[in-house]
């Protein structure tokens, strides 16, 4: 029996419109070109950071080891993190679901009668749709990462986890700013546009009641929240407002501070091809009584949202190794063709395909895993060696095989079709038997001319497949 759909489940149905959405992008040459250009740029930047293949491979192996070791001790180090943070004066909260996480965050806001929450970049806050929940509670949640700010102004969602506005041209952004930001002249100069964003957002930092951020690594032994960024908005959000709330998935914990340097190096080099980000911000507590700035209150919300389901299965657990660098999407030929929005999930691209089913259930995501040629580019670049293609195959199996008892995943069998399963059974029947194989392929070679000229989706852009008039085995016989 399938586990029942918990009430909290967000109403994403990414599978539903996936093909239509991807078709739309694929047929837009302008978007195709801009995604391709941006991904090429990121691919090239990354490669310059890894000139030494041995160094890269050994660092990936170390990164994988660090992540697997820490996942192996996850419950222990979560408790250690909680203890240390509490000692440091940070309030720790636990949320199983997006609703719980939103309730905790909005509860803190309400306690402080907050009107404005300024947000540093946080994909987990996108995952729980915090902005909607805040709006419903009468709190203005404003994005401050330039890309997120642009996307929020446009009423859209991020299309890339590292570069949220990568689907937009500067002309589109120029027009957007001109329409939405009061009192500015039109400009499509990138520096000028960034200055506009800077000026608008600085005024918001100044008056915000709450700063919200994500977390890149949380260090258990020291009780430290680490944030990686280039812009400084993460530092602003976590320093200027009187209250800082950080939110993270439960998997992003490392036991020791010394685990951070290798992961940081892998993260920035893989993500944007930088040897390090401009800022690496390590927060271990609120302002002390003699200090002159920094928030007086710091909270951490630890979110499960399906991660514990992935954790329970040895293979699926590897999904949680992810450090959210986005290299898998940059290198993915599918992401490059369709961009981030087509996926319909918070996390797009290869990582989105393997993590989203745990968050949303296979009911909503069953077909996402089919959108891969299993080319392996994602697994090849993953800095912590997540075997993404293997996980995609596993998800296909969980989606399409008949529902069974004690499934490892919510929604197992959601994509089951008796017809499709029957076709594969028939295929196996033929291909496991030399007699039937010979018979069927002989018929194919003799009557190949009867093959239809329209062969479903194959012939939309290809000529039909026709078996050769003689099989290899026939040719070998003739040759003697």
């Amino acid at each position, binding site marked *: 029996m399938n586990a029942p759909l918990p009430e909290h489940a967000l109403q994403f149905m990414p599978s539903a419109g996936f093909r239509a959405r991807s078709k739309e992008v694929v047929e837009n040459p302008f978007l195709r070109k801009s995604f391709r250009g*941006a991904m090429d740029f990121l691919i090239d930047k990354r490669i310059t950071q890894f000139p030494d293949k041995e*160094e890269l491979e050994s*660092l990936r192996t*170390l990164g994988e*080891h*660090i992540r*697997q*070791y820490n996942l*192996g*001790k*996850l*419950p222990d180090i*979560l*408790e250690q993190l909680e203890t240390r943070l509490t000692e440091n004066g940070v309030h720790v909260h*636990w949320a199983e679901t997006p609703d719980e996480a939103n309730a905790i965050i909005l509860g803190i806001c309400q306690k402080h009668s907050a009107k404005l929450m300024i947000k540093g970049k946080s994909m987990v806050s996108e995952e729980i749709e915090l902005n909607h929940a805040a709006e419903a509670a009468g709190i203005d949640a404003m994005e*401050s*990462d*330039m*890309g997120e700010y*642009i996307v929020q102004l446009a009423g859209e969602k991020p299309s890339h986890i590292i*570069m949220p*506005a990568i689907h*937009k041209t500067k002309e589109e952004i120029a027009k957007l700013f001109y329409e939405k930001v009061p009192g500015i002249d039109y400009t499509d100069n*990138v520096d000028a*546009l960034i*200055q506009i964003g800077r000026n608008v*957002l*600085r005024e918001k930092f*100044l008056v915000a009641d709450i700063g919200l951020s994500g977390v890149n690594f949380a260090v258990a032994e*020291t009780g430290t929240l680490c944030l990686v960024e*280039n*812009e*400084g908005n993460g530092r602003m959000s976590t*320093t*200027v407002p009187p209250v800082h709330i950080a939110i993270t998935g439960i998997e992003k914990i490392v036991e020791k*501070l*010394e*685990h*951070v*340097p*290798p992961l*940081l190096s892998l993260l920035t080099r893989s993500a944007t091809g930088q*040897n*390090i980000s*401009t*800022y*690496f*911000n*390590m*927060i*271990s507590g609120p*302002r002390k009584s003699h200090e*002159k*700035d*920094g928030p007086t209150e710091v909270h951490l919300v*630890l979110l*499960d949202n399906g991660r514990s389901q992935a*954790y*329970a299965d040895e293979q699926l*657990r590897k999904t949680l190794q992810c450090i959210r660098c986005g290299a898998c999407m940059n290198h993915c030929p599918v992401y490059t063709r369709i961009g981030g929005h087509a996926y319909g999930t918070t996390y797009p691209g290869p990582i989105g395909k393997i993590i989203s089913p745990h968050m949303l259930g296979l009911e909503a995501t069953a077909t996402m895993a089919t959108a891969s040629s299993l080319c392996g580019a994602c697994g090849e670049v993953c800095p912590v060696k997540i075997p993404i293609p293997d996980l995609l195959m596993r998800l296909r199996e969980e989606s399409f095989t008949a529902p069974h008892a004690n499934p490892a995943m919510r929604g197992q069998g959601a994509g089951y079709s008796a017809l499709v399963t029957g076709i594969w059974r028939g295929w196996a029947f033929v291909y496991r038997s030399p007699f039937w194989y010979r018979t069927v392929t002989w018929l194919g070679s003799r009557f190949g001319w009867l093959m239809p000229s329209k062969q479903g989706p194959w012939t939309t852009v290809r000529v039909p497949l026709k078996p050769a008039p003689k099989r290899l085995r026939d040719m070998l016989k003739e040759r003697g």
Partner: protein
Amino acid sequence: MSARERILAKLRASEKFGERVEPDVASWFAGHRRVESGAEKAARFRHCIELAHAEVYNVNRGSWLQKLWEVLAAKEITRLLVSPGTEHGQRAMSGLADNDIECRGYDQAIEQWKDEMFHQTPASLTTARAAIAETGTLVLWPDADEPRLMSLVPPVHIVLLDASKIYNTFYEAMQQEGWKDSLPTNALLISGPSKTADIQVTLAYGAHGPKELIVLLLGEEA
């Protein structure tokens, strides 16, 4: 059961497998990162942080104040945020006063002067606790004397760095200084002025933090 108990119970139920051998971070660094001389480290640091668009000047204990003034003069900056509780802050305050630079001390909690910090503070001077050669990175540990916002809000951030405090790697810095037992409320690695490439992957500086980062690299000679 609380959410905390339910999450931990689910995770504990799956502890049967997983990597148990501790990763050997030290060996990796020993095998992959060279230990360089002071001069090599200073050169590497400078090269990397300049690539990230920072300005670096070699100075010594006698000349840094003069260079500081030159930098401010060249940028037509007449106000500087300094830390009155530090020796270099005191030196700057006394030394620059005669040269038409008004020094503002960070001497009260930010709530008392937030608006002034955001609107009337064009530059700041702080020290760096250490630096990292591999990535061209400054290490700052803000404290009561040099609070967090000094290195974030003013559009120009000037940093005094003692060249003898440059480590080869981030890992070496944290190990040799015993960070795991001594981290402050906020520790920072800064590797250039604030930047973004969020508009059409075009690099722009001064996104939210300082638009310019200037390093006065204190060595024996200059």
